[in-house]
């Protein structure tokens, strides 16, 4: 998901004001289309009113320009998670909690799946890092 334009900076914020036509919903409609009339007409369901990976990466650029690299990394991981179904997301969150995964392999499999099915490279690496840390600290023991 590369961009051919210059990276966004602080003066590009807020996107809704500075780049209103670029801000789109998950189904490609511009933000300005989300009006009360449109909602009443049934043009938008809740799942349509969602952020896109592109917008999250734009916000990451702005965060980085504002000197907040770790916030940018969060947004970049978030961009990878946009299209992950809610159930899977909750499942992975659960697996990352202490004692849920019985051993390292369970987390590594989850990471592999995220890479393969969703291209979520950064999140996958993040989970692999967690798996190694949990092993080192003995966090795969069941807690209840």
């Amino acid at each position, binding site marked *: 998901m590369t961009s051919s334009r210059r990276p966004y900076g*602080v003066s590009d*914020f*807020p*996107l*809704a*004001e500075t780049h209103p036509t670029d*801000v*789109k*919903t998950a189904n490609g409609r511009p*933000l300005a289309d*989300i*009006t*009360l009339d449109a*909602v*009443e007409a049934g043009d*938008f*369901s*809740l799942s349509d*009113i*969602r*952020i896109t990976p592109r*917008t*999250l990466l734009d*916000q990451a650029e*702005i*965060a980085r320009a*504002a*000197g*907040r690299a*770790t*916030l*940018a*990394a*969060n*947004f970049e*991981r*978030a*961009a*990878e*998670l*946009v299209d992950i179904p*809610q159930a899977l*997301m*909750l499942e*992975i*969150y*659960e697996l*990352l*909690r*202490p004692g849920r995964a019985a051993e390292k392999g369970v987390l590594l499999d989850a990471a592999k799946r995220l890479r393969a099915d969703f291209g979520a490279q950064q*999140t996958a690496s*993040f*989970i692999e*890092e*967690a798996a190694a*840390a*949990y092993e080192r*600290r003995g*966090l795969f023991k069941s*807690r209840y």
Partner: protein
Amino acid sequence: MTTDDTLAARQSGANRWRRFDDWDNRPLRLDRFAVEDPENGFSAFKGACDPKPGLTIENGRISSMDGKPLAEFDMIDQFIATHHLDVAIAATAMDIPSQDIARMLVDIATPRETLAKLAHGLTPAKLAEVVAQLSAVELTFAFSKMRTRKSPGNQGHVTNAKDDPLQLAADAAIATALGFDEIETTMRVARNAWSNALACAVGAAVGRWGTLFQCASEEAEELQIGLAGFTSYAETVSVYGTERAFIDGDDTPWSKAFLASAYASRGIKMRCTSGAASELLMGFHEAKSLLYLEARCLCLQRAMGVQGTQNGGIDGAPLASSIPGGVRELMAENLVAVWLDLECATGNDARHSESEIRVGAKILPFLIAGSDLICSGMGTILKYDNSFNPSSFNGEELEDFLVLQRDFEADGGLTSIEDSSALSLRRRAVDALSAVLEELGLGTPSEAMKQSVVVASGSDETRSYTPREVAIISDRIKQQNITMIDVVKALARRGFREEAQNVLNMLRLRVSGDYLQTAAVVRDGRIISAVNQPNDYVGPGTGYRLSEQRQRELAAIRDVLTRDEVLRAEAVFAAAEAKRIIYRAVGPAGQGGAADEIVIGISPAFGTKLYQTLAGHPLSAVLAALCDGIRAGGGRPRVVRMVHTADTSFLGLSAARLAGSGIGIGIQAKGTAVIHQQDRLPHNNLELFSNAPVTGLEHYRALGENAAAYAKQEMPQPIMVPTGGMALGARFHARVALIYSIETGARGRST
């Protein structure tokens, strides 16, 4: 027991100073205080096992941090070393003496940005060592410089003891009108989360849009409620400073960071939460200080990439405050948070003391420094309705907070609301929610229910939903997969189009992601954050300053005294007085000859412009009491109006010098009175009634009798008017000053 018996009981068997009994009865004595005990985690700044700051880097990788080698890193150390520390600058940053950095924090010539960048190279122990050196005033000043966003804000709790959705909607509308940037709800019964969420979201859309809203519940449920569109942010994503506390909290830095990204992936704002003494409460403090453990938590949060933190003791605030320096520590940890470039909702949440003085003192530094969100949050409802347990400030104390803003000309994010608008806002909110409940088949509140909620100050006064009915509503919302879009449509169908648009505007925030950035809030329909409104304070005249309009708003509290109002009130009494007394001038006053004559010198506006004392006694009655008393004591009264002075002492002395007996009474219209004698110095009187508000007619009568006694060269018992310790200046001096200017303005005119 009679008063005498009680006194006797107190004095018998006295083996200590009685003052300790008075102190034992104060609310302060309900607080428990803990001795400093570093080995057992009871230390604000000096834990027995606090490490010295340190960092070693080999081949571009961290090999030890704060004295611990890489191989021994726990999961928190590892996460901080990997994701927080910038090895490119860390060596240089760590070498700067802590005192130098401390001075930079309070130096207006060192920009915020410089310090924020420097923090990327500082370990938890180093951050803690630096801020520990700052005194309370230095911490306050540094905080005002280092917070991320320029304009201050506030967060409020909206809850009630019954989880009653009608009341939640009404109270959410009030909170919005007061100017809270965020509101937070939680439940008495966990399963009511969905109905709480619906009710607050609708209520917060009344009057204006932009109040961010969170529903504090179990992590996974909270995420689901967010995904259904009811909430606009999450906050209670807790992190801890020791590994074992974190694990007992059922998470790790990675799981929480994943959760943070999950919210962002749905366009929903979030912040983490940490606060001193959480590890102590959970039993895993590792003999480390409150501040050091918090420095770890905050480095962790920056490392996780969250935009902000709820910080400052939070649930641990009462425990932290029981330790010496605990309140200073809470200020120190908040400084670390903003230094690490995080939005900070600065505690002032769980009430840390039963002493109102301690409560007021604790919030003041944040009010005058300014904070992204000064409370996390303030109870907008009465204490008994606060489902989080009472906050520092609650519904009862709201006006105290508004007055503090006015006293210090400091922006705490809130604005007074008017009597009339409060009722109509609540009515609108209750009607809007009722419309939604009806449209979605969730319930049909009766008019009686709605009306009881609209006027109620708290849930004790309402006749609304029962807890069982609420649980049913909540379950239905969840089971029927009702989303906020359904709510928008329901509002619109029923004619609540403004509210429907306001709710939709909140949902639309998710698409642009603008409000995910650091310290983002919605003001007048626009996103303000640390990105487009950074704190640019570099000394007096810079940074956040009150606009003229904002100054007027802060000054406009309820029930303020004006000159016109005082005069109007007096005019009301004029008519009644005119029926009771006529002041007939018989000519200029001459020297009296009779030895039993006592002159009463009245002030210029006495009975002509002012008609009752501060205590509310008609002046005709006061004059009558004085004259009766003089006669009862065997004297003869003569009333003289002084026109050259309104000062009590000079009234009395002038009267005394005219009197045949050499004894005179001076009295102002407000009721301040004096017995004077002809050859005494002006302010060295015989007796003085200086507390007019508590002076009764019986006192004036007794004053007259005493004057007569002095005329006979007797030595009567001076009259004592007990004040009972009332702060009469606070209660009356604004009115006194206004009245007195009327008196002095009336001088020099004959009647």
